[in-house]
């Protein structure tokens, strides 16, 4: 890797770290504001953003092969499927 790209890489890591810290404070702060039914969706949206940042930048999915991305997504999609189908019972009882 050439030094220029390497420096940019390092900078990205610190930026992502900053964003993650910021989002942590935001999610804690928002929890104390009454958003009605929206509190949980907002908290989850922030968590997903943070997870995406970690996966794309820290876990290098940005530079990964297509296959690695597919398997990274497969687990998540499968978990969503698991949740949805279990709830198809619980929410219709």
């Amino acid at each position, binding site marked *: 890797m050439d030094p220029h790209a390497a420096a940019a890489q390092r900078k990205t890591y610190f930026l992502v770290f900053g964003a993650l810290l910021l989002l942590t404070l935001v999610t804690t702060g928002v929890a104390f504001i009454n958003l009605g039914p929206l509190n949980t969706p907002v908290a989850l949206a922030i968590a997903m953003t943070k997870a995406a940042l970690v996966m794309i930048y820290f876990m290098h999915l940005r530079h990964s092969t297509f296959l690695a991305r597919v398997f990274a997504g497969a687990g998540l999609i499968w978990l969503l499927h698991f949740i949805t*189908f279990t709830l*198809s*019972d619980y929410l219709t*009882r």
Partner: protein
Amino acid sequence: MSVIAETTVAARARPPRRHYLNVNYGVRSWLLTVDHKRIALLYLVSVTLFFFLGGAAAVMFRLELLTPQSDLFEAETYNKLFTLHGLVMIFFFLIPAIPAVLGNFLVPLMIGARDLAFPKLNLLSWYVFIIGGIFTLIAAIMGGVDTGWTFYTPYSSTYSNSYVALTVTGAFITGFSSILTGLNFIVTIHKMRAPGMTWLRLPLFIWSHYATSLIMVLGTPVLAISLVLVALERLFQFGIFDPRYGGDPVLFQHLFWFYSHPAVYIMILPAMGVVSEIVPCFSRKRIFGYTFIAFSSLAIAILGFFVWGHHLFVSSQSVYAGLVFSFLSMLVAIPSAIKVFNWTATLYKGSIVYRTPLFYALGFIGLFTIGGLTGIFVATLPIDVHVHDTYFIVAHFHYIMVGGTIMGYLGGLHFWWPKITGKLYPEGWARFSALVIFVGFNLTFFPQFILGYLGMPRRYAAYPDEFQVLNVMSSAGASILGIGYLIPLIYFFWSMRYGPYAGANPWDARGLEWTTASPPPTDNFDYKPRVSQSAYAYEEEQKVG
């Protein structure tokens, strides 16, 4: 013992001087091996032991069921026996049988690789398997467990007075051996294929193992965590499933079957792969509908995760969920039917050679057809209401797991035995035992369909008198089946020592595994495999290198 009648030219050749079996000797060379072929043999020995243990339990409770009263054993012993049978057969035989033995041996050979992608992980998976097995066996020796292999809560987590936690730990640990095997296969099939071995040139055995591996990797962890939760509830009164602690017992059933229904496809898909190799070989013909069979394996693996709720039709699951899961379960019929029809069509205008592996494969097709069609019965809601947890279910899944998986496993073992050991098995005895197994199997399990529709519940140590005749038929069949399984055990041992040398390719089969010596060298190939043919090119000569 009569040796195979027509000795092939290859059989008169000499075995290679150096191969994976004699490259080094001693216990250490086996227990520390990272050669996938040796690990396959470690698994072969282990699963065979477990198979006969589980079989012995079955023979014992079939004896008990000769009479309506529970007179041979007390109900408690009976319950422990069927639990041991289920646990051992499912977690320690059916799930690892084909993938960890034949799959381990053949996946690298078939794709032209030197080994699996992670050989040490492969060895680790065997150790994990053995440790899990030891836990389960210790629990069995200390007094056993009586929950049934399904561990339904709150019986397992609170009420049972048997060694649940220890057994659950055993099953939990063993699950990781399955995950490691699946992970290894996925990476190997993606990354280790020889030049020219494109996806659509892969043998169907590989496709079915790829599909199986997806289930192992995506399903098994859910079983693992469910068992952890059962153990936490049992040991520390963590409230998750027991209504006394506010939990919902049906949630366990959701978690359990999210894995355990796909687990049925872990058992059957590899056997389908075996059949897809054997049928074209002995028909001397390309397999019919290659792509349909290949993609139906993936379809079965994925659909398998969408149908678990059909185990909960009478468990107070919502009517809506029941309808959804019934509908989706019906769809499994399609990829299954595609496979059966394509195998049958492969025979058409073939040049069929009668050999034991083919008889097993044809037996598989027939019995799987019965098992699959009765699957439509139990996916149909009102029929399942009546037959759920009766002997109808027992018969149905034994047609799949014994009629399907074990037929496939034995067929595969006979087919690749010459490759694994370099020796031929005695054909006459093999045919005889295949016949005994087929007859014994049907006599054991067909009466159970009738028993089930009559309403005899499963897991009953004692039963009303009117069910006796059918139960006696079933027990008689079980003893024939038991003998049928012992015969191959004996002649396989015999052939290791006295069997004639098989040659590299005794069946004149296609596929990379037949292009190397029997037994293969440690690195599998003495040359660099290159593939320029599609699989099952039986109308051409095999192109090598």
